[in-house]
């Protein structure tokens, strides 16, 4: 059997190792820390950073044009008053969900393999939520008054309307960003201490030293830290489900056919996790290759993530199907027409791109060969990203353009400003992401170390994956003097 087959097989008798090759603590530290410690970034990093920064500057230019001229520079009109702006918002906020799923939900489910990818995915979450938060902020007519959304006592003696889902969105997205940032930072403190202790230059010592807050790995600190980490995971789990549910309320609470559906919250959450895992894989596979992280992010990790992609892809496909069923079974003409129009109307091309990318493409992950071939996963995940963007476009635009009365119908096409704003948001996302992998540890070193066999007692009943359920030996000579250590 090949190494990949050994590692991805499901033999209950033996645990698949989560770290291949040299799994000593020092080797793990060296592998991860050396990436941020090299004096110069690799050439591909510099080139990608320059390109990303260029697009981020384009975003700034588009925003300047929008703010100085008005929302008329976009192709929005009545009835299609939401277009690329809200499509991009839902797309980006959905991307973020995979990071929280990996860091919180998989933590609660004791999925130890998450340790190699959680830091990376959480970073992606933060940057995606930054891009997401941008769009609702700029799609208001006068974005300089966005602070009116927050309930603060003001001279107008007015308060925001909390019965509107748009207000729920403000609270959900800002809470989500704050919690994700805190979770990410708290998780990073032990690794920042490692970077501080390895720092050779004065600047690095000061910056990492301040960021590490004087962490020294004290047992009492670890004790509280682990409790808090568990609590944060338990808080972030319902939060991540709530955020995309609230985003779906923006649509579902309205009365528009195609939006007014009770299936929306779970459908949106599944779609968010689906698109987020696709983005994690899109980013992870090239970076794993470029930094030679194959021993830490193994075939098993890719295999697991491809399985999540398949499962959530099936959920999304089910939701597409059930929407049609509901439209037919409701006996409601408007509802039925909306879905007839989606599949066969003027935007049917977008609908079928969505179905192909989100339902057909992930079916290849039934085959273990596809789940362990990085370039195939990369192609699949890129197509899923495209498909999930089109899903939101279909939901937003097809529903708005064909509402109840044919006299109200309209159409929509984006202007070049909207297209470049979307591209610019990718520029912002990749700029932040490249800075992250350059200056912060992108793999949670302390967590990965805690799942290799040597993190447990040599004589513990379960040696491996950091689990220790046995008794502590009561006399130390029992360990030190014992001669029957099993060779590892």
């Amino acid at each position, binding site marked *: 059997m090949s190494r990949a087959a050994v590692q991805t097989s499901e033999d209950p008798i033996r645990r698949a190792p989560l770290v291949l090759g040299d799994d000593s*603590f020092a080797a793990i*530290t060296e592998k991860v820390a050396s990436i941020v410690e090299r004096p110069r970034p690799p050439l591909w990093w510099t080139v990608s950073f320059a390109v990303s920064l260029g697009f981020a500057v384009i975003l700034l230019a588009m925003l300047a044009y929008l703010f100085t001229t008005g929302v008329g520079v976009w192709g929005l009109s009545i009835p299609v008053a939401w277009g690329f702006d809200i499509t991009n918002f839902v797309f980006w906020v959905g991307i973020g969900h995979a990071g929280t799923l990996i860091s919180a939900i998989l933590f609660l489910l004791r999925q130890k393999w998450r340790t190699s990818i959680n830091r990376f995915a959480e970073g992606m979450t933060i940057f995606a939520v930054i891009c997401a938060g941008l769009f609702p902020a700029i799609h208001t007519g006068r974005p300089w008054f966005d602070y009116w959304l927050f309930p603060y006592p003001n001279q107008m003696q007015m*308060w*925001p*309307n*909390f*019965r509107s889902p748009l*207000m*729920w969105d403000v*609270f*959900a997205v800002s*809470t989500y960003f*704050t*919690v994700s940032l*805190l979770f990410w930072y*708290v998780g990073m403190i*032990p690794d920042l201490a*490692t970077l*501080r*202790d*390895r720092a050779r230059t004065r600047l690095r010592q000061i910056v990492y030293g*301040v960021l590490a*807050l*004087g*962490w*020294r*790995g*004290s*047992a009492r*600190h*670890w004790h*509280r*830290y*682990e*409790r808090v980490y568990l*609590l944060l995971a338990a*808080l*972030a789990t319902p939060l991540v489900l*709530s955020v995309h549910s*609230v985003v779906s*309320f923006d649509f579902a609470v309205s009365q528009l056919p195609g939006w007014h559906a009770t299936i929306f919250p779970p459908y949106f959450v599944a779609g968010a996790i689906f698109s987020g895992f696709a983005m994690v894989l899109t980013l992870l596979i090239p970076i794993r290759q470029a930094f030679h992280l194959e021993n830490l992010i193994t075939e098993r990790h890719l295999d697991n993530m491809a399985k999540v992609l398949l499962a959530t892809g099936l959920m999304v496909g089910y939701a597409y199907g059930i929407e049609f069923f509901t439209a037919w079974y409701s006996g409601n003409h408007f509802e039925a027409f909306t879905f007839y129009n989606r599949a066969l109307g003027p935007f049917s091309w977008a609908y079928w791109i969505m179905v192909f990318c989100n339902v057909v493409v992930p079916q290849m992950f039934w085959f273990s060969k596809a789940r362990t071939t990085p370039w195939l996963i990369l192609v699949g995940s890129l197509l899923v990203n495209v498909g999930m963007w089109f899903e939101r476009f279909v939901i937003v635009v097809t529903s708005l353009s064909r509402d109840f009365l044919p006299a109200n119908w309209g159409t929509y096409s984006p202007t070049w400003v909207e297209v470049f704003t979307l591209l610019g948001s990718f520029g912002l996302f990749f700029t932040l992401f490249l800075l992250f992998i350059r200056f912060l540890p992108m793999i949670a070193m*302390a*967590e990965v*170390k*805690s799942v290799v066999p*040597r*993190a*447990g*007692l*040599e004589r513990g009943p379960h040696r491996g994956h*950091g*689990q*220790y359920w046995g008794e*502590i*030996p*009561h*006399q*130390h000579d*029992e360990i*030190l003097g014992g001669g029957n250590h099993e060779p590892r």
Partner: protein
Amino acid sequence: MSHGDLRVVPSPQLWGLAAEFATVDAFLSAVEACRKAGYVHFDAHAPIPVHGLDEAMEIPSSRLPKLVLAAGVTGCLTGLALQWWTNAVDYPFRISGKPLFALPPAIPVAFELTVLFATIAAVVGLFVANRQPELYHPLFTLPAFARGSDDRFFVVVEARDPRFHREGTAQFLKGLGAEAVYPVEV
């Protein structure tokens, strides 16, 4: 005797002894041995959370979860009170025939504030309880301790411990299988 030189060079004071261990097994049993030997002012430092360490050191369970629960309840009540007072009392206006205040539409904001308050309490509580940021600590003066965040485990007995004895404690720590025992001076 020179009278001109009034500079006082303080002699370094012994703050404690740090014993370095290479394996979890030796580290855990050393921690437990220290506790059994009656040391009070000792600590264990590890690059990873070591399972079984809480029991070996008999660390009392943290009270942070109770704080987090209290903060979460506060957040929830804040969310409900905010929506009720602003929309139904201070600035009532009818919109779409909806009631001025009702529980179902108030749930999302109340839930988000529950999570937000609880999370901030957990993180701030962690830092306060751990007394962080604490950018200086005597252990940071020990060059060997840099590996404490990499691959080495340290058991540190402070000199203020009533049972501390410079040679005796050093011998004791060496006997527990330490790779090395370092004096930490401040």
